[in-house]
């Protein structure tokens, strides 16, 4: 396996010709996600594995008690580690971070941490002294395009799946209950941001695109590795189910119609709803399974009405 993926001109033309005729190499629709395969751990909280096509990723959420930042005594801390190792692809070097890697980390960080999707004040235990730190570790196993969308999706899934141990405070002394002693508590998630990466392809010459009249650039959602290698530009839109726009990121590349931006936001909304529901149903299924396997029904105090 070589360090850099080098594709031939033939392959590029083949891809372009396909797109001209409205066909992707994978025979998917232009704005369709690949099928998402999800594994949620039933033994522990906050461990998920997600794969989409050949892109595979696992996310682990963990918690610990630390002292808060001096200037934010009421807030817990959310840390997201998204170092990409050379396991996922040889183009990511473990010792030095490439620009692409930094970009991916920044966008995921902005989508989740900066959008306040996790209620940090809820993580406070004793103001100014003890707070929970929630650590999200993303491990990219295999790279086949679209790390941003999957990274963000899997992180939100893992955060929804995670439960931190219950605590009680008595005279400044905190007691942390073991998971088997007391049912652990969910994090308070204010909203679920979903990233959508749209990749643009310019099938005409550069000049024709800039002059504008016949700029019929093609827009694909959820590109795989080959498509990502040949794209001429991309745009990341982060939305949530409440129809709020969280982040827009377009770093140069192919110029697109401003009108198209609005259209993409509108079109993206249905996909966002779909993915948010996927997270919710999967978490619910997982909880039911756990409920059954642990016989938690026996602990119910209220009668069925």
């Amino acid at each position, binding site marked *: 396996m070589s*360090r850099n993926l080098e594709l031939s001109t033939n392959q590029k033309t083949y891809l372009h010709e396909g797109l001209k005729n409205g066909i992707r190499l994978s025979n998917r629709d232009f704005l369709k996600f690949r099928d998402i395969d999800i594994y949620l751990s039933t033994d522990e909280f906050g461990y998920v594995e997600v794969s989409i096509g050949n892109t595979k990723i696992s996310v*682990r959420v963990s918690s610990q008690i630390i002292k808060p930042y001096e200037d934010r005594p009421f807030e817990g801390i959310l840390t997201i580690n998204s170092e990409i190792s*050379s396991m996922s692809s*040889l183009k990511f070097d473990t010792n030095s971070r490439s620009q692409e890697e930094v970009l991916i980390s920044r966008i995921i960080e902005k989508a989740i941490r900066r959008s306040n999707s996790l209620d940090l004040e809820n993580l406070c235990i004793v103001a100014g002294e003890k707070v929970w730190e929630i650590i999200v*570790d993303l491990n990219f*196993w295999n790279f086949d395009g679209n790390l941003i969308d999957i990274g963000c999706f899997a992180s939100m899934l893992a955060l929804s799946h995670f439960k931190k141990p219950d605590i009680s405070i008595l005279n400044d002394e905190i007691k942390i209950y073991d998971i088997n002693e007391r049912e652990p508590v969910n994090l308070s998630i204010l909203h679920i941001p979903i990233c959508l990466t749209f990749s643009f392809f310019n099938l005409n010459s550069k000049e024709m695109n800039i002059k504008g009249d016949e700029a019929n650039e093609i827009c694909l959602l959820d590109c795989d590795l080959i498509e990502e290698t040949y794209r001429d530009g991309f745009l990341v839109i982060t939305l949530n189910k409440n129809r709020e726009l969280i982040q827009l990121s377009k770093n140069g590349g192919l110029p697109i119609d401003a009108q198209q931006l609005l259209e993409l936001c509108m079109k993206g909304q249905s996909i966002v709803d779909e993915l948010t529901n996927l997270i919710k149903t999967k978490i619910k299924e997982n909880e039911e399974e756990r409920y059954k396997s642990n016989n938690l029904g026996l602990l119910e105090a209220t009668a069925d009405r």
Partner: protein
Amino acid sequence: MAFQVKTSILSNSDGSAELIIGGTKVLVSISGPIEPKIRQELPNQASLDIIIRPYKGLSTTREKLLEDKLRQLLQSIIIRYKYPRQLIQIVVQFLIIDEIEEFTCNELNAAINCCYFALIDADLALYSSFVSVVACINSGNLLLNPPGDILINSDSHHVICYNIENQKANKLLFLESDGEFTEETLFTILAKTVSEAETLHQEQRKIIQAKIENDYIWK
């Protein structure tokens, strides 16, 4: 203790394997032989680049020590002169672990066993098969593949790796013993783990046989 193995799961690596053994789950990917950086290049044999990533957080000196142990072991098993001026990169990613931070023996054991499957998946030349076992002495009793909570209170614990030739564990490749133990206990453990290693090797053979049968189906 049974191995649960999946091989060839990562399309961007030359060899990969995922192993669940006890409460530990680990993923190993191998790329190689590939072109090395100039400072890594050795004129007459392949150089090894081993990267260990912890199950949570960023890698620390704890992983550095594990990398060093794994490197010492693997460089005597891979026939390195077959790939001069080349690099073999091995990334070990722990996914689920079952021991506290100060202990690394379950992780080391899982990493060694998983590397075996990944090396075979990557078609790299090896001198021999190898298999690793963890043993601990807990209030006088010998326990193989102990879970993490027993490990903390154990008197001594040992990671033992044997080389397997002709289905026999005939050579001690690697031994890492800690805690407090006598010479007699050590040799009892060594004697007992030989048969365990041979049973595990039978399991390895089955897994590899199934893998090869599956790999050569024309789809």
